[in-house]
């Protein structure tokens, strides 16, 4: 599903984001990217989203080599990727329903399909009753669930989460993790960058540990590991 082969990203100022990284992710996997800030997690996420292009190596997503993908094809690549960010990124002047429907509108989905899918995905994340609320009327957890609903409403095969629990209190964070696990169980591949040690330890999923732009550990059903070795 996702294949990262010997990928390096050197920024124009000469600093290396990631160095010679190779990670293979199967369909339906749940993978944590862990590491301290500056370890290359964000760079890796940006490379997957094709926000950045690798300076070396090859990235394949859904059998498409993304390196040499022409600019006009990038939107279609992104339709395979649902994205959730730490800061939710909801549109403040749109309701919960409109925020989720927006993701379908902009890829020109038929309005019939929008009217069917949006309520379904809102009830999946437990926000059916809040569909008319505006983001500023919601708690942090509810906002992130809205963002999650928006990320999966187009049924992407891959869900990419960049510190999705970073702005949430522990119990709300767990609600989100339950949802992510649920989504994963339905067959969506989930990639999550985080440094929430307790969550990683409890989930017992695949953990890829990054340090100074390199993979130093990649284990199935692992924990967060010893933090001292990160630095």
């Amino acid at each position, binding site marked *: 599903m996702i294949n990262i082969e010997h990928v390096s990203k050197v920024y124009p100022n000469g600093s290396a984001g990631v160095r010679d990284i190779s990670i293979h992710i199967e369909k339906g996997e749940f993978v944590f990217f862990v590491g301290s800030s500056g370890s290359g997690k964000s760079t890796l996420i940006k490379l997957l*989203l094709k*926000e950045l292009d690798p300076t070396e190596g090859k990235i394949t997503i859904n059998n498409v080599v993304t390196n040499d993908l022409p*600019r*006009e094809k990038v*939107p*279609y*690549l*992104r*339709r395979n*990727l649902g*994205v959730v960010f730490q800061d939710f*990124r909801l*549109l403040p002047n749109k309701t919960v329903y409109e925020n989720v429907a*927006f*993701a379908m*509108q*902009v*890829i*020109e989905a*038929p*309005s019939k399909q929008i009217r069917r899918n949006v309520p379904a995905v809102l009830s999946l994340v437990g926000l059916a009753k809040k569909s008319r609320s505006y983001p500023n009327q919601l708690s942090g957890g509810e906002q992130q669930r809205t963002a999650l609903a*928006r990320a999966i409403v*187009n049924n992407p095969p891959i869900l990419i989460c960049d510190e999705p629990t970073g702005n949430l209190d522990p119990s709300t964070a767990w609600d989100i993790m339950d949802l992510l696990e649920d989504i994963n169980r339905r067959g969506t591949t989930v990639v999550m960058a985080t440094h929430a040690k307790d969550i990683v330890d409890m989930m017992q999923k695949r953990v890829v540990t990054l340090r100074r732009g390199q993979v130093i550990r990649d284990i199935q059903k692992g924990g967060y590991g010893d933090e001292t070795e990160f630095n």
Partner: protein
Amino acid sequence: MKPSSIRYYFKESFSGLLKNRLMTVASMATVAACILIMSFSYCMVNNLQYMLAQLEDDIGIAAFMPSNTTAEQVENVKKEIEGIEHVTEVEYVSPDAALEDLKKELDADDILAGLEGENNPLSNSFNISIDDIKNQGIVLQKLNEIKQNGGLENIKDAHSETEVLIKINTIITVLGIVIIVILVVISVVIIVNTIKISVFTRKTEINIMKYVGATDWFIRWPFIIEGVLIGLLGALIPMLIAWPAYAKSVSMIYDFFPVIKNMVTFRESSEIFSILLPFSLIFGILLGVIGSVTSIRKHLKV
């Protein structure tokens, strides 16, 4: 492009215009002001050139034949002059007709009395019109050749007047172009900034659109429509002001200075605006499209 998307584009662009109401009005007003000044310059330049052309028409070359020429000689020389490049019209003036003209001009019949017929000292002559006063030099050269061959005796041209007219014409044209270019640049800068603000307030929106896989054109359309609407309204308003204002000014000038009508006439307002109106509207639309495309470009690179 799906109908639902087109509806979306228009909804988005209208809401964008309303959300940035102040900037929308400000930029429309600025575009309107620029186009108004441009229209004013155009009216001025166009009319001045039109009037110069009228004055130019009055400036011709007069060529006089030696006295005691036969009708056959007159006919030959006339044909010869007509054969010169850039000559558009050759009018033959008989000595009698010349005398009549002179009498009218001097308003002194008694002084010139008795010079009719056999006593007429005036010779056969031609009034020569040319296509453009710029070509006067070339024509004069040819006429001088005829003079050397004895066909003509004297050539009278309005050399200095011609030079002045050509100079005025050039200055006006250059000045008009400079003013228009400056205003075009100002309009572009202003419209780019308005749309930049509009784009900036919707940065998150564009960012989300990029992440969920909206195409660049899907993102661009509402902003382009926004720019076109600003440009179009910004162009239409000054046209609605300038057209009646021009017509009114011309009739007022004629009323106050009736003499002017004998010398020159202004262009009809319909003549001016049949060019100016479509030009302004197209210019407004182009301004809007260029403005939105340039201001959104940066934000699409995600």
